[in-house]
Structure formats: C-alpha cells, structure tokens
C-alpha cells in the first residue's frame, strides 16, 4: 500500500485527497491551520494538526520511515519550501511534489529537494489556452481524464525475458494488435529523459525500460498479460 502525506489541505490538497480516497492508498493529511483540519475531517479524511516546523513532527508521521510520497500543497510557498527541505533531509528516496505559486520559486524548490513542482496558475492558464487554441485536443484529453474513464494512459515496465526485450520499437506491430498507441519510453540506460516516439528515433527496448501507452483499460490489461508484465 502506498503511503501518502498531503501537507496543506488547500483546494489542490483537497482535490488530491478526493482522488486518492480508495483503499489502495494510506492517506494522511496534515495542516497547520486548525480550520482546514476541521474541514478535512468534515470531508471524511483523517487529518492532523501540525506545522511541521520541527523534524520530530515529520518523523512522527513516518517521513524517513515508510512514507512513499509527500505532496506539499499548502498555499504558502515558503512553508512548502521548508517542509520540502526538512523531508528531503530525512529521506533521500521520498517522492516530493510541491506546489509553487510564484514563478521564480521553482528553482528554489528543486534545490530544496522537490522532485517535481507544479504551478496552479500555469496549469489553469494553459488549460484555458488549449481550449481556445486547440479545442479538439482538449476534447480528446478530456477522454483521458480520471472522471470520464474512457481512455487511459499507462506506464508499463518491460519485464526480463519478455517478448519486447531487445527489439526495436519501430520494427514491431504489437501495439497495433492491441489497439494501443505507443507514446514513448524511458530508457534506464540513457538516463531520466523521456523519449517520445514522435522524435523519430528508432530505439531498442530493454528490460526495465518503461513504456507509455494509450488505449482502453481492457486492452492495456490484455497487452500487459501478453508481454508478461502482469
């Protein structure tokens, strides 16, 4: 079970919590504001009050021990920064995703140890822009959204000895057979850069590489079984 901590029951924190409410996740919500804690409890989540101002408090809820993911979603950039830094200090492998409200805070957050940063305003603006400029792309993307559930984007780790191990991806028609679209892959040998299929390079797939495919959920499941990833 993935253990997740959400720091800051902001609007974003709340939406994340709603999406993670199934049983697969062990969710803890922390907020420095008692009112937000109350609101989270009202919404049916288990929430605690803490400012995370001391490492002891972080350790208490399991950071450095068994927490896998930390979302810093408070509305205050400097608070997010502080918690990110403290958590990174306790756990090198923790996945930390932090919200940034000011554009120039991105570098700071990465330096402090956040794996990824997201700016709520940029996301909203880009979404609005896409609707204006490319309405059809927006329509297709909405098919992939968690709510509509029609299509799914999935990542698949190539297992050792699989039929895909050691082949060049332009040479195979296996994706077509399962009505899937091969979007790209991450090659562990080449580092952390994601390679899009559309970049036009023909690349060899090895085991432990991660493929990203688009398709219906059932087809993806069939495909996974076929290549031995399930």
């Amino acid at each position, binding site marked *: 079970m993935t253990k997740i901590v959400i720091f800051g029951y902001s609007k974003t924190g709340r939406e994340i919590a709603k999406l993670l409410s199934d049983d697969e996740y062990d969710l803890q919500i922390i907020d420095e504001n008692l009112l937000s804690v109350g609101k989270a409890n009202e919404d049916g989540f288990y929430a605690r009050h803490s400012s995370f101002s001391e490492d002891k408090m972080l350790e208490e809820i399991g950071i450095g021990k068994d927490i896998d993911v930390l979302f810093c979603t408070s509305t205050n950039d400097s608070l997010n920064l502080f918690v990110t830094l403290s958590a990174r200090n306790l756990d090198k492998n923790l996945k930390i995703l932090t919200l940034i409200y000011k554009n120039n805070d991105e570098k700071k957050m990465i330096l402090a140890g956040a794996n990824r940063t997201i700016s709520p305003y940029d996301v909203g603006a880009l979404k*609005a822009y896409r609707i204006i400029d490319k309405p059809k792309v927006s329509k297709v*993307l909405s098919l992939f959204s968690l709510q509509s559930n029609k299509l799914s984007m999935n990542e698949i780790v190539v297992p050792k000895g699989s039929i895909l191990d050691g082949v060049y991806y332009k040479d195979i028609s296996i994706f077509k057979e399962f009505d899937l679209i091969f979007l790209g892959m991450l090659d562990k040998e080449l580092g952390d850069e994601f390679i899009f299929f559309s970049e036009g390079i023909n690349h060899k797939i090895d085991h432990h590489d991660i493929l990203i495919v688009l398709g219906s959920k059932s087809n993806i499941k069939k495909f996974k079984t076929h290549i031995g990833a399930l």
Partner: protein
Amino acid sequence: MLAKLIVSFAYFLDSSKKYKEVKGFAYDLLENPKSKIKPYFDAFIIFLVLITVSILIYDIAHQISYHFEIVENTAVFIFILEWLGRFWIHDDLRHLIIQYHEKQIELSQKPKAKAILKIIILQKMKYMFSPMSIIDLLAILPTYRPLRILRIFLIFRLLKIFRYTKSLNTFFKVLSDKKFEFNFLFIIAIFAVFMSATIMYVFEGVGNNPNIGSYLDAIYWSIITISTVGYGDITPVTLTGKIVTLFLVGGGFMILVLATSVVTNALSDKMEIVRENKLLSQANKLSNLIVVFGFGRMGMALAHELYENGKNFIVVDKNEENTTKAKELGYLYMKADASEYEMINNLVFQNDVEKVVITTDNDALNLSILLTIKAERKDIEVLVRANNDENIKKFKIANADFVIFPYETIAEVAVEYIGNAVKFDAIENLILKKSNITLDEINILEGSDMVGKSISQIGLKHMSITTIAVLKNGSSRNFIFNPDNDNYKFEPNDSVVVIGDKKNIGEIKKSISRQFT
C-alpha cells in the same frame, strides 16, 4: 389631413429598408465613432478646411485664379452637404412621430398637425443651435464675397477641425472638469486687474504719466503686467504706482503658477482615462478579440500564452497594480470594474469579441460577468474559472462553455506522480511544458486533397506523427481512437488529434492551407 400625411410618411420610411440603409451609412460616415470609414472622411474634411483657409488667406492680398474658386466652392458645397447630413441624422423623427401617433391612438384621438410640427421643429432646432452646428454654419459664411467682414469667421472654419480631432476634444473636456478652479482664478485675476488699474488711473492718470491717457490704458497696463509679459510701453512714474506694480507682478506670478498647476493636475488625473480610451479604440480595430477578465496570476499566465502565439486579446482588471503590470508587458488592457454592465457593454458587445476568459479568484464576480455576457450574446464562447468545486455546477447552469477548475487538473496530474513518474513526465511534457513534441489538431477541410487518403499517404507516419484519434465533425461523441494507418481514409470535416514534432505538424497544416490560396 397634413397630420395624416406626415404620419403615414413616417410609417413608410420606417418600413423602408433602403432608407434605413442610407441613413445608417450617413451615420457611419459622419457620427459613428466606431465606423471604419469615418476616420477617412474626417481626414478629408480637415484637408478641405486647410486648403480653403489657405486660399482665403492668399486671396486677401492677391488676385486668385478661378481654379481656386472652383475648389473653394466645391469645398463649401461639401461643407453644406455635411451640415445637412448631420441635420438629417441628428435624430430619428419617424420614431418620435410614430410614438406620438401610437399615444394618440391609445387616447383615441386623431393626430394633430400642430403637435407633430412642434416635435419636428423642436428636434431640429436642438441640432441647429448646438455649438458644433453653429461652428459649421459660421465656417460656411466667409465664402460670401460681398460681405468682406465675414472673413473674420474664417477662424470658425479652423475651429471645425476640433470636431475631428478626438484628443483636442478630450483636452477641453479635461479642462472643463476643473471649472471651479479656473473660475476661481479668473475672478481673482479680474479683481487684481481692476483694482490695480483703478489705483494706477487715480494716481497717474491725470497728467502724472503721459502714457496713461484713459482708463483703458490703465487696464491694458495692468493686464500686460499681471501676465508677466511687461512690454514696458507704460511704466509707473509715481511711488504709489511702483508699489502697486510690485504687488501686481507678485500676484500675477502666483496666478500663473496656480493656473499651470491646475492644468497639469487635471491632465495627470485624466491622462490615464485618455490613454485607456485610446487602448479601447485600438481594441476596436481588432477582430476575433479574446477578452481576459482578471489579470491575476492565472490571467497573466494565460495572457503570456496568448501574446506568445500572436492572438488578439485585451485584459481587464480593476486593480491598479495588475493593470500596471499589463502595461509594462505591453498588453492591451483596461482598468475597469467588470461588475458594471456598462463596462462589459463597451468592451464585449461593441467589439468583435470571439471568446471571453474569466479568471478572477472571486466566483461571485465570475458568475456575474458570465451571466451579463450570456444574457445578451449567446454566441460568444465563455471560459470561466471556478474557485470552488461547488460552483462548477452553477457556472454550467449559467451556460458557461467551459468551466476550468484548476485545482482538479493539478490534482489529476499530481496523483499520476505517485505510481507513474514516467507517465507524469510524459503528460507534463505534453501538457504543461514547452517541448518540441506537442499535442495538436489537424483539420481536414472539405475539398482538401487529404480527403480519401490514409494516414500513411498524407505523410503522418513518415514524419513520426502519432495519430491519437479522429473526431468526426469535431465532436468528441463520435471519435475513432487509434485509427489504422492504411485502412482509415479521411473524410471531410475530420479533426485529427496528433502528437508529434511541432515543425512537422506545422508543415502538414501548411500543405492543407496552401491548397486554398
């Protein structure tokens, strides 16, 4: 009998499409500040004024050839036509007459010729005695040669130019806002002039000073001194006169300083508004305008995208700090309160607005803007930001075309990060970051030679462009996911959603549009 005739004529005009068209054209030409032809017409009239004034000035000392007279007469003829045109379009008499007639019917009385004529005369008199109409009329007079004195009215022809220069009008309007201050200064100045002139006349007027022969001389001296011009043709000779002069010079200086500061103040107060009017008129000339309400952080990020992609847009915010930022970035902006109908009317309804994006962090305000727009113009596409998930429904009820709840989008992206960091990267690269690989749409237009061809045939596969889906008639209800590269043949009005290199997609799009040139 006469009354009946006029009323039926009014009805006849009201039903005539041609009449309305002609009148509409005259309005566009002469008065409509938003029409496209008016600026040309204005420039033409200003040109005529300058030409004829030059001719008339030349004529004072020289004998002019008949060519110039033809020009002068033509110009005056045009001036007369222009005045008559304005006289005509000043009001819609037919509406008033019909209104009167309807009222009489209600009262079951017959229309009276006297009453109708009164309406007509009152309306037209109103125009004739308006300052601009008088200036126009006086501008025509100097042509009448037998009365050379009328040449003085030449000056009015120059005044005519004011009508066509908006900035001068605004300047006078700005000054008229400071009426109280100017009146005050004027009264003080008059008081100072008369007092000093009287003292001067009493002490130096009777023989002491040969230059002051009359009270008028004293006034003349006083005005020349108070205005700090000081020709020196009349100077005080007595001690009293000199003391009065000292005070007058000091006072004159004060009055000038005050007057200058009043003008500067008035201008700096109004300059912002003047500038905004100018921006608004700039927006007026743009087509397919996108209006962005709220220049907060989301508005700013959106404006940046729009700017980078060369879209026509204007941002609206009532916060001074935000509009200053927009100004610095070189965007078209308007500092205004979007909760006022008048503002939305001026900006959205009067312009060629295609889309509206409402991005403020206040849902009540967003709803009010949305409803104001949708109540009048359903065809304008409105995107609205919801700040609270409970309000998404309300915006949809209020007919918003799209509701953007940024927090949900972020959450969806963020959640991907838990187990699927690679997928997150792919999504982030495609959706949030700027990379060469992009999601785009290609529209297969009717009549394009792409129709009937397969994905491989139009070169998508060759360029490594991945086809995600084909939307039939652009609707997501009827779509084909992952169409076959060889078997699927494009039909007219297909929209193809693809992932690929920006440059490659651009080339495909160009090859479609080139066909239609």
